């Protein structure tokens, strides 16, 4: 689990804080031996969660500590679509599923952004909207893998509000039956008068429940969302009716106090009448709530129709090719969670992203605050660890054939070594192979050069320590010697204005040499 060898990670101590706290709370007090073992082990699986490149770290100038993503608190400043960069108003984001409501879509096959294309038709139908230059219909088309909504049988009459049009169309082009959100007619009929407000509903669509509407060919089960709302209506109804006037003490029976939120009804859904199984007809006391009894109340039986649907699925599996089935990764997004075949996939509306301000988790100081405008990449406040902590980079001083001589390296910019390691690890990957000159060899001494860069205007004193012997699979048992365990790095002498300083990075560096004597056999990588 290691990247190419010459890399530097910083360990944030916040992980240890929580764990010791926990030990105090939940387990028997641990003895002092635990203290000894708390030295950080970069090879443990846990280390992956607390090691960060310095570029990812912030620095709290109050606490004088680095702050990693897990020890800052975040506040959302704005939500925006990564495709069209439009800011989403916070009033609607949640009901839109935190997704872009404009014409942005991603390809369900390869996740590239889709474009709205016009299908050129020989005789475009007369369009009453003069704004449309190109005749419809329109499709969403993937410029990368050439997938388009034609593959799932969907075209759009208008090039605008694709989201709305898509929501009304099923795969194959059939219109989606209207959502049946209200308590269905059968439930309404058995409603007691308390819920008279249900009758105030405008009801042009109330009689087209999912069961009576023409069944879409691919879906035998009701839409999970419809069923959820049936269940919700059923429970609401149960909560509001079985409590009404039946609880002793509830004299005022206005519907308002019997809503699902009222405390008197809250407790009842879960723990009613444990004895009601044995005495199924309690002679006195409030009547128990009942279970959902019809599809309109959310009940769904695994019946013959469901078995037939399973059979159809199995037949389709057997007769179609491997790549007509949706893959695990294509089903990752919630949009396509239930898709079995590639034909069931839908274009994915991209999830919004956020700009966030970050505060120190300990003292609440603002550590980073980007500008509010979506397109701006500047920050109002940014306390980076890079500006406050010495930056370390390490690299091997290996055989002269592959490595520049030490002099050159010292004269070059050590920081760039580190950066290349991160941005293009290919460069460093050969170092992983045992044949590379960087790898530890049995009974051979390898030199490493550690470079510290001090961004501060004060000089710092550095003490180095290393375990006397290496552990882990990369050169277990090798001995480490630090040739220069203590030294001082001078102050950053550049006192120019901040903006300029960032461009002309000129800071003091000091270098320390490490040698590692490889002992024993190196386990293959």
């Amino acid at each position: 689990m290691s990247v190419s060898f010459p890399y530097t990670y910083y360990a944030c101590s916040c992980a240890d804080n929580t764990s010791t706290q926990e030990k105090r709370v939940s387990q028997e007090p641990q003895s002092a031996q635990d203290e000894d073992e708390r030295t950080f082990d970069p090879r443990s699986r846990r280390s992956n969660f607390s090691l960060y490149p310095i570029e990812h770290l912030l620095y709290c100038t109050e606490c004088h500590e680095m702050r990693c993503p897990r020890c800052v608190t975040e506040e959302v400043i704005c939500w925006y679509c990564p495709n069209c960069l439009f800011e989403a108003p916070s009033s609607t984001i949640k009901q839109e599923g935190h997704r872009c409501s404009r014409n942005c879509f991603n390809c369900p096959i390869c996740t590239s952004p889709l474009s709205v294309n016009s299908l050129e038709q020989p005789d475009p139908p007369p369009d009453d909207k003069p704004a449309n230059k190109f005749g419809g219909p329109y499709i969403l088309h993937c410029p990368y893998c050439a997938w388009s909504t034609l593959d799932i049988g969907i075209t759009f009459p208008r090039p605008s509000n694709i989201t709305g049009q898509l929501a009304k169309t099923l795969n194959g082009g059939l219109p989606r039956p209207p959502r049946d959100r209200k308590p269905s007619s059968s439930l309404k009929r058995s409603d007691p008068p308390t819920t008279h407000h249900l009758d105030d509903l405008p009801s042009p669509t109330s009689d087209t429940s999912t069961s009576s509407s023409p069944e879409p060919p691919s879906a035998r089960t009701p839409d999970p969302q419809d069923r959820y709302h049936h269940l919700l209506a059923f429970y609401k109804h149960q909560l509001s009716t079985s409590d009404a006037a039946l609880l002793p003490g509830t004299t005022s029976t206005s519907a308002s106090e019997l809503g699902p939120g009222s405390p008197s009804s809250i407790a009842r859904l879960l723990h009613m009448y444990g004895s009601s199984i044995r005495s199924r007809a309690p002679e006195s006391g409030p009547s128990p709530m009942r279970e959902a009894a019809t599809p309109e109340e959310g009940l769904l039986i695994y019946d013959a129709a469901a078995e037939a649907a399973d059979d159809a699925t199995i037949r389709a599996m057997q007769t179609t090719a491997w790549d007509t089935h949706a893959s695990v990764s294509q089903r990752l997004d919630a949009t396509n969670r239930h898709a079995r075949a590639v034909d069931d996939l839908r274009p994915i509306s991209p999830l919004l992203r956020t700009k966030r301000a970050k505060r120190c988790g300990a003292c609440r100081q603002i550590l980073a605050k980007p500008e509010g405008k979506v397109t701006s990449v500047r920050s109002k406040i940014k306390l980076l660890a890079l500006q406050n902590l010495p930056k370390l980079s390490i690299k091997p001083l290996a055989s002269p054939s592959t490595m520049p001589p030490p002099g050159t390296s010292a004269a070059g910019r050590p920081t760039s070594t580190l950066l290349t390691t991160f941005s293009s690890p290919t460069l460093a990957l050969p170092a992983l192979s045992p044949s590379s000159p960087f790898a530890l060899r049995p009974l051979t001494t390898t030199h490493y050069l550690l470079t510290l860069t001090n961004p501060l205007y004060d000089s710092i004193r550095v003490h180095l320590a290393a375990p006397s012997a290496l552990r882990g699979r990369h050169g277990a048992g090798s001995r480490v010697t630090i040739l220069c365990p203590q030294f001082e790095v001078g102050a950053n002498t550049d006192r120019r204005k901040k903006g300029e300083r960032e461009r002309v990075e000129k800071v003091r560096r000091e270098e320390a040499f490490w040698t590692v004597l490889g002992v024993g056999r190196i386990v293959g990588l």
Partner: protein
Amino acid sequence: MRARPSPSQITASALSSPNSPHTPIAGAYSRSLASLYGSPSSLMHRDENFLVLEFGSRYLRVGFGGEHAHRVAMTFGPEDERRVGDFRPWLPGYREDGPVSLEAQGWGNEYELWDMDTRELDLDLVRDKIERAVRLAERTNLMLDLLPRKMTVVLPSVFPRPLLSVVLSTLFSSIQVPSISIISSSIATAIGAGVRSCLVVDVGWAETRITSVAEYREITHSRSVRAGKRVLRELAKLLNEQVSKRFADGQSESGKCPTLGLNEAEEVLYRLGWCRQLADARSASKANLSNDETDLPRSDIEITTTDPPVTLQIPFQDIAAAIESALFAHGSATKDLDDHEQSIQLAIFRSLLALPIDVRKICMSRIIVTGGIANVPGLKRRIKQELEYLIQTRGWDPVGDYGKGRPRRPRTTNKNPTPSPGATKPTPTDNDSASEEEYIPPAHRTPDPDPIALSIQNRRAATAPIQGMLRLVETQGAWSGASLLAFLRVKGVVEVDRDRFLKEGLAGYAKDKDADGGPTRKSFGPGIGAAGERGKWSLGMWA
């Protein structure tokens, strides 16, 4: 064009408007979008974020209460443990570390959040994983603008206390929520199915959990290790056999034979996983003995993770056979298996057998098969057929094999498992027509409820449930059940208060273990929340 607000909104506002100051329905409400991705949140007060988290062995499902499904399922594979700034997966030619050998003890363990056996478990690692998953889910999917007011956590009902402590403390520290309510996954599953009593068969990852629930109380609990991990392991075995055969035949050009792991097996399960009917499986296994399998229809399986990619041709039947052998354990005698290894049909059967007859009658008509594997087409039918077969051949007789002895009673009397002549089985339409007589046109309805008519109506429905027949009920899933609860503001049985937990930890709660009176096992009940005993509360079954 602005859509007309959907009727349910009006319902909701009518329900709650006199109760509390209510934000008018947002004018910008767009029906189409809301119907695509979730419930209209205008149902809730806009500022309320009720989070619902469901913990499984491999997934953490996260979303908002009141929505029909979770927003995202976080995974815990090796890729999710990557260091920040480690971009190797995006390099061309990158491959994950090779899978663990199939015979290894911990096959698939690296994809788990936790192992229920906490002796060897690094709890701090679990904490790290949860913390990162929750943080990522918030960052990428929830994008909270305000701190959530409430959080509901769905957990298995048998859950080690050290893990519970880790889960709670991690959630309290990573999301600043004032209190967390915990609900057992089987109860949430029942709520998601609309039933009050049922037998929940949760074919999960590490184990299949079978829980009988009566009136939202858990009665019995049993488990079997025959679950998702076994299924994937069998599939991986099948794949590896085929791959090595290919390499032995020299069909593939070069290179050493690759080992296929969980990812490849999962791909096959998602795309081609299925179960045969019981009769088909039996005849196929007979035919297999006599026939050569060369003429069976084969399915192409493209493995792209190997270098070079290979296409395997595996008989379609074999995929079902692998899944079935993992779950139904045909071919191995029952007596050779440990209790925790029993086939799932036998585990279900024994669970039903252990119930009092009244409860059994109710539960056997409400068997809920859920969990990650439950969606494999044909699986539910197969479970049903296996159960029917067991009931038919054995009756409700606790002794499965009399050996040389004889059954106490002739088995024929048990053929019809639950002769319940007294119980009528009204179909839903009966109910409807009955209540139709009481139907009053809206104009003539009195605003006041009629308690007598109401209780009669409720009692009628409650006294005549369908029972005694084997029936499978589908659930929306535990997450959706918990989402319903959260949205209906039903207080969970176990409410953990942030301040108190941070001060005292779980130890403070364990003291109140008996506060709810009843036996711990069945304690999904009294003594909580709105019942009035606010000071007194407990960890319920998790104590």
